[in-house]
């Protein structure tokens, strides 16, 4: 467990929210999928930062470590999938701009 006062918690939450907002803005303004990938990683970074105050609660410290562990590996897996999708998109369309993606979803 880590000792944390309310000002430290506020600083962490403000910074996490700012990074998350910047990630959203980067995702909205992205014109290619590489920048989209970068903005997603920024958002995950903001989530990791928002997890820190959980470690200050005595009976939640171990749970917070478990959550952080699962979040790190799950988000890394998601980003690996996105990286694979980018390479496949480039192979199919010869273009990585978001304008090349015209439709979403999949057929069963």
């Amino acid at each position, binding site marked *: 467990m*880590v000792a*944390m006062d309310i*000002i*430290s918690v506020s*600083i*962490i939450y*403000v*910074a996490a929210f*700012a*990074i998350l907002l*910047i*990630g959203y*803005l*980067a995702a909205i*303004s992205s014109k*290619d999928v*590489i*920048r989209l*990938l*970068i*903005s997603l*990683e*920024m958002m*995950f*970074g*903001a989530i*990791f*930062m928002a997890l*820190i105050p959980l*470690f200050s609660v005595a009976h939640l*410290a*171990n749970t917070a*470590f*478990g959550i*952080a*562990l*699962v979040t*790190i*590996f*799950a*988000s*890394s*897996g*998601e*980003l*690996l*999938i996105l*990286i*694979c*999708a*980018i390479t*496949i998109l*480039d*192979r*199919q369309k010869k273009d*990585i701009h978001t304008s090349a993606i015209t439709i979403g979803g999949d057929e069963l």
Partner: protein
Amino acid sequence: MLLLSALAGIAVVFALGVLLSKDNFYSALYMAATLVFVATVYAFFNLQPVFVLILFVFVGAIGIVTVALAATYRSDPERQVSRLWAVPVAITAFFVSIAIATYCYSALNLQPVSSSAIEFELMNFIPLTEYMLIVVFLISLMVLLLLSVLKMSVGGRS
């Protein structure tokens, strides 16, 4: 308090660099720096296991792949700032770093951290059965992710 504010502020400034840079390569580098400073906040609170995990898995693996991908698909943006600005920026960075170093070593009187000071207090954070369950869960997740990649690549080929 001041050190935490500085770490969080530097992370936000690097995040702003991602948004403002038009070159994907530099954006990826700024993103990696942001994540390093987010991990450093964990180290600041003596949560070294999470710091190592973020640094090795998220920054070391995924971040480097992203930087490599951004360097591969790099386009040359038009330069908006003159190269001459590098001189005042370097001078300012030099004086700021000198000021920070002086503050750290004189006002706070920080001692270098020895390796024995790092204690992994969260080693046995869950029982063995639940630990095995999490391992099985993560392996299942990775298998599902690999299957989806396989489906994407086979679907793309057909």
